[in-house]
């Protein structure tokens, strides 16, 4: 399976990475060079259905529905890039009025 320029552009968009022309070209080459080594896995006979989760798992430990919450040693102001009235600020979503969250891919 060869990775194309369009593939790289598509996954870069999914990952919110901006690549220029030169980087895209380089990535196409590099990703293909890496992925070619993965093709060997196709020939390995694996038991169907198994292995869809991490190996050697004990079952999930649960926690009580109670506080106290984990503390922050310093307030949000100390690390937030942009805060006002307690809100994190981000550039206004251009199409927020029209688009439900999951459509802003």
């Amino acid at each position, binding site marked *: *399976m060869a*990775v194309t320029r369009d*593939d*790289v552009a*598509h*996954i*870069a968009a*999914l*990952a*919110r*990475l*901006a*690549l220029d022309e030169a*980087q895209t070209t380089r*990535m196409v080459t*590099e*990703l293909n*060079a*890496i*992925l070619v*080594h*993965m093709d*060997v*896995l*196709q020939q*390995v006979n*694996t*038991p169907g259905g*198994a*292995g*869809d*989760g*991490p*190996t*050697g798992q*004990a079952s*999930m*430990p649960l*926690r009580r529905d109670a506080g106290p919450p*984990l*503390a*922050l*040693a*310093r307030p949000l102001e*100390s*690390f*937030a*890039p*942009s805060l006002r009235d307690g809100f*994190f600020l*981000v*550039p*206004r*979503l*251009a199409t927020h009025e029209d688009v439900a969250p999951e459509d*802003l891919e």
Partner: protein
Amino acid sequence: MTVPSAVAQVTRSFQRMSDVRAGANGLNCILWTDREAALADARAVDARADRGPLAGMPFAVKDNIATLDLPTTCGSRILEGYVSPYEATVITRLREAGGVVIGKTNCDEFAMGSSTEYSAWGPARNPVDCSRVPGGSSGGSAAAVAAGIVRMALGSETGGSVRQPAAYCGVVGVKPTYGRVSRYGLVAFASSLDQVGVFGVAVQDAAIATELIAGRDARDATSVEHAVPRYRDAADRPLAGLVIGRPREYFPPTLDSRVAALCDRALDAMRAEGAEVRDVSLPHTSLAIPVYYIIAPAEASSNLARFDGVRYGARAAGEGLRAMYEHTRSRGFGPEVTRRILLGTYVLSAGYYDAYYRKAQQVRTLIAEDFTSVFASGVHVLFTPTAPTPAFPLGAKSDPYEMYLNDIFTATANLAGVPGMSLPVGRLDGLPVGGQFMAPHFDEFAMFRAAFGLERALGAEAHA
């Protein structure tokens, strides 16, 4: 004989930092440090009625583990200046035991690399030969121990990032069983592979530190309830009766014969002490790198999505939210991280998930079963070279996949979740060579028993 005060120990560490030029113009192994804060911590330890098992011992911490006062940048511009408002569980445990954090160490960006050349803050250098890499991704911690700045340092492993630099720098490096040590506060790279690891000057340092950080943490659902033995007591166990497996796949014909020879010398030394060495096979070993380089980048691509400039870290301006995301991430991440995020996104994407990620997890099960079978056959530990070569020169490896092959002997343990540790077995042209033990899940005691035994058996030859 009394242990020196915390203040004295910390003062000595800072002196050593200065003597070896640990900062940017020298080894570049220590990124962030605060002498006054460290001395204040030391005074607080000295003031305690009980200074704890570490009794003021200074230790260094890899830059991807959250500390309260020093920055945690993970070797990345995207976290430039970020100081965590909470502390990792492993740090809390070591400080409660009387340890003092004296600096954050350099690492490959987000732990992605095998040489510490991918750090945004410049490469770290190997104290044994500073034209060479210290290994990676925990190269800074390995170097700090090798340079004598600290007796113990924390690192992290995903594919070998503690064992390999330990081998390159001639120190001891331990990767516990997956789930043995809390990951709360370890910035995630690949969640199903990551573990906090420990460097020590000698096996004893690493054993004590591992003991202190191990154990279930309610804040990490993947940490396992399992009693923590006194690993330092493994020093009292003889090698006699220990069955050591020598897996042939780790001694391929392509391996530098001198590296193989040093490992076989180590096995001979252990045989002389009464250990039994058996030839064994881990047949799926050659699949480890392809499997690792699908699973790790896939999980990383998801774990690094939180670095978006919204709540913390660097933010680049952009016209609109989309542009802000893209500029922040593209400027904040280096080329290796970018490459792995793209690779990981690709192998998870629609149409490729089954062929790549799902398949890799299935093959991973086979790799894990290799270990289970061998240990079930009566073998207590496995012994192999840690890395195919000693430390290579800075800038020597430019091909990404060639760089990935440095993990060829270490990644299997991460994939299977078994514990592994590296210790020095000799020198090649003056450069350290490491041998590694691997043991069954949660049997670090067997691993330490073997390591203490080998350290005793080799003596000074380990550094010759």
